[in-house]
């Protein structure tokens, strides 16, 4: 049996039962990484030596019968836009190619405190801008299900690493679907908790009012394990919530049917939109039947402002991007152009050389949208529409536990097929971005394949009702297994 194909919680049981040591588990994963990485390219930087030291430390704890943290020696992949002390953190960008942070993100501190092992930094679209991991300065990641296809993005490296058994668990970030969509593409579980559930301290921002750390695992139980290890209020992040001082406690007894009596909303706007691929729709319809047969109550609802979600998202996201990217100026850290005569040239040349096309595109759009005279009609109006979208969801969640939709209306696609058409890539975001605009929680759970490619079911919950989403996911998983 290949130990790397087990679920994280199964590995954890083996470690706790002393069937396997943390070092053995780590070495098995390192071997797997060495085997598949030349093709998959899920990692930008590996942390083998430090990881081995950590594994030995944890084995020492086991030997001494000390109590282990939640992650009990499990190897974990970290999206490379999360700061790791003394370990290169690039955001898959040339401008941070050699950036070594002198500090850990709060989530990294929590992983360490829970005896998890950071095995390496995973690939992403440059600064998390993209949906295919193709805009990475370090080359694209391949989808482990079909290596001709993209793994999705922007957390494509983390999703692929879990899918290819390089790690059992990984962290990603989700600004407009960057955890859920790659989870859907790679056939794994991807959970984006409520905004504020996980500290953003040390998470390099793309659009800071939308960004949230998310988790990847092979099943819902894995995702819950990872979430509980990193959630919690952090005084270093003013946007983190005191409500998130959990862990979420859910009875994992297999015989409980969490779908019984659950109230499920289906927005008619998504039904009308529909995926162009009928088989993808059929998969979703099947999933609905599973919910219905298990005793869930399904109702059609309306999110009237959904039609403005994309424009709203792109304006707010770009405006925040333009501001968040300003610190990469070549003055204090990161890449600095070698040739310049004036200060302006230093800025221009550094940023021209350091940023890729997609990053530049978003900086340009955001700078334009925030400029005097336009901000009223674009940025400020978008903030108002964002409130309306939030209110749409509030109305639905007043009477429903969860909302169901596709995680992505499109299947994983071939490399270079969409990147040349940014508008098409943006459109697929309609299923995921409203969740970020409203700060909700949401999870993508595998629901079968079409043409051998995975399709994900998106379960959306109200703010700080992450437990509902997890229960729905557990219920669905049990019903289809």
């Amino acid at each position, binding site marked *: 049996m290949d130990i790397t194909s087990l679920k994280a919680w199964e590995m954890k049981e083996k470690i706790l039962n002393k069937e396997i040591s943390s070092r053995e588990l780590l070495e098995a994963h390192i071997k797997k990484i060495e085997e598949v990485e030349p093709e998959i390219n899920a990692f930008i930087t590996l942390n083998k030596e430090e990881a081995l030291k950590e594994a030995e430390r944890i084995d020492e704890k086991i030997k001494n019968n000390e109590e282990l943290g939640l992650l009990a020696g499990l190897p974990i992949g970290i999206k490379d*836009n*999360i*700061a790791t002390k003394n370990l290169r*953190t690039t*955001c898959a960008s040339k401008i*941070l190619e050699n*950036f070594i*942070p*002198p*500090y850990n*993100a709060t989530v990294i501190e929590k992983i360490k405190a829970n005896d998890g092992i950071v095995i390496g930094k995973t690939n992403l679209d440059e600064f998390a801008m993209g949906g295919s991991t193709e805009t990475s300065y370090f080359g694209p990641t391949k989808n482990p299900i079909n290596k001709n296809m993209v793994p999705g993005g922007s957390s494509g490296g983390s999703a692929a690493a879990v899918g290819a058994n390089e790690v059992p668990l990984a962290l990603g970030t989700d600004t407009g679907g960057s955890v859920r969509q790659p989870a859907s593409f790679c056939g794994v579980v991807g959970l984006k908790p409520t905004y504020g559930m996980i500290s*953003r*301290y*040390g*998470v*390099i*921002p793309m659009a*800071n*009012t939308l960004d949230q750390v998310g988790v990847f695992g092979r099943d819902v139980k894995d995702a819950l394990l990872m979430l509980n290890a990193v959630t919690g209020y952090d*005084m*270093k*992040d*003013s*946007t983190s919530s005191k409500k998130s001082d959990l862990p979420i406690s859910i009875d994992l007894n297999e015989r409980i049917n969490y779908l019984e009596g659950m109230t499920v909303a289906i927005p008619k706007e998504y039904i009308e939109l529909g995926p162009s691929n009928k088989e993808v729709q059929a998969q979703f319809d099947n999933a609905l039947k599973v919910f219905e047969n298990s005793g869930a109550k399904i109702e059609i609802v309306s999110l009237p402002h959904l039609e403005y979600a994309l424009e709203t998202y792109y304006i707010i996201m770009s*405006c*925040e991007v*333009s*501001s968040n*990217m*300003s*610190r*990469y*100026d070549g*003055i*204090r*850290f990161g890449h600095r152009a070698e040739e310049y005569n004036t*200060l302006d040239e230093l*800025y221009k040349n550094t940023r021209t050389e350091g940023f890729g096309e997609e990053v530049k595109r978003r900086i340009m759009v955001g*700078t334009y949208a*925030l*400029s*005097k005279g336009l*901000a009223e009609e674009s*940025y400020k109006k978008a*903030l108002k529409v964002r409130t309306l979208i939030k209110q749409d969801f509030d109305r639905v969640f007043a009477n429903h536990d969860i909302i169901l939709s596709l995680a992505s209306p499109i299947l994983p696609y071939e490399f270079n097929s969409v990147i040349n058409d940014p508008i098409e890539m943006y459109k697929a975001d309609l299923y995921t971005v409203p969740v970020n605009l409203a700060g909700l929680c949401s999870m993508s759970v595998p629901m079968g394949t079409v043409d051998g490619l995975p399709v994900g079911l998106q379960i959306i919950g109200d703010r700080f009702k992450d437990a509902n989403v997890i229960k729905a996911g557990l219920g669905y998983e049990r019903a289809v297994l």
Partner: protein
Amino acid sequence: MAYKTIIGLEIHVELATKHKIFCNCPNEYGAEANTLVCPICLGLPGALPVLDKEALEYGIKAGIAFNGSISNIIKMDRKNYFYPDLTKGYQISQAEIPFCDGGYIEIELEEGTKKITLNRIHIEEDTGKQLHSEDGMTLIDFNRAGVPLIEIVTNPDINSAEEAKLFLDKLRAILKYIGVSNVKMEEGSLRCDVNINVVNTKSNVKSNITEIKNLNSFKAVVKAIEFEEKRHIELLEAGSNTDRETRRWDETKGETIIMRKKFGVSDYRFAEDGDIPPIKIAGEWIEEIRKSLPELPHAKKERFIKEYNLSDYDAGVLTQSKELSIFFEDTLKYIDDSKLVSNWIMGDVLRRLNDDEIEIEESNLKPKDLAELLILIRDGKINNNTGKKVLKEMFDTGKSPETIVKEKGLIQISDEGALKEIIEKVLSENEQSIIDYKNGKDRALGFLVGQIMKASRGKANPQLVNKMLLEIINER
């Protein structure tokens, strides 16, 4: 022709909090470059700002002291621009909703009290400091990056250099009273930009507004305003006008020099900060802060007039600086004579402080020592002139008046036996003066007193000398 000058000020005040506004780095002046920094104030990627409660409290204190209305919501915005001393490519500041709206400061003019109204006060972070080396290198010290600042913006209510000076004096005094800032222009904890233009009161023709930067003393503010007033008027008189531009004050040349012309309006692309969600301010907290404020200069002046029977002018001078007013009241704890103490502080003490260009708290003088000195004078142990000399020695050495008097043997001779001996001796040496006095020349008496004081090396009690001298002469 008659011109009216129109001046608005923008004043940046560094708040003397323990920590920087968004991180835990110490807020200190003068440390070695780049030693008071962390990922947050250096703007390293992923580091997040957390608003310091003390900074907000200090800001609100100032807002209340300047009679402004405190917003019940604190919202932080990003002011986007590129500059090497700005670590994040944006400054976290306040755009549409400042924490304090309106307010005013009253200044005393000869024609009465004038209210200078404030437009707003907002809170923000300071930037780093650029240092240019002789070989053309630019070095940046980020110790100042993230120091809390408030920006006080006045309405264009100020009409002369003198009014500007009075306004700034008052503003500084109030900030010192409430203890929220060191308000030292030379250390940059108080910085002032001037917006100025003139209007012809007959034709209503206005000059274009000039902004003056780089003013590092109140004197410079006064001189720059006077220089600009003249320049604006001269240009209008010549049928020309000023350009919309930013100028800086050149201290050595004594003139303003153009820095840059203003084309259009600058665009800072303000946006919500997002990392610091809006904070609701409880009315109780504002009330608590209001109650914690010390007595402000105006109220203290009124009290001094009533309680100590001082003149309006004296009370004004004594309350202009918080430290001076405390010094005055502390001295009164040891000697119950407000007139005497006020006279000495207003006279010799302030003269000395002005000469040394220092504040009372920076001098060697202690309230208890001044009181002791005044008691020595009042009790006739030393005379007034000796007292002045002792005070000088106290400033120079910090010694107590009694030590000085003892060391120098300055105790006044009030012993009649000893005095009689000196008087007799002087009279025997100046027979002619006795004759002159008896022949009606009163001046001769003055001469004799002088000789006696000299012979006693200034220690003779003058009142006693006068009395005894007359008695002895008349007996002869």
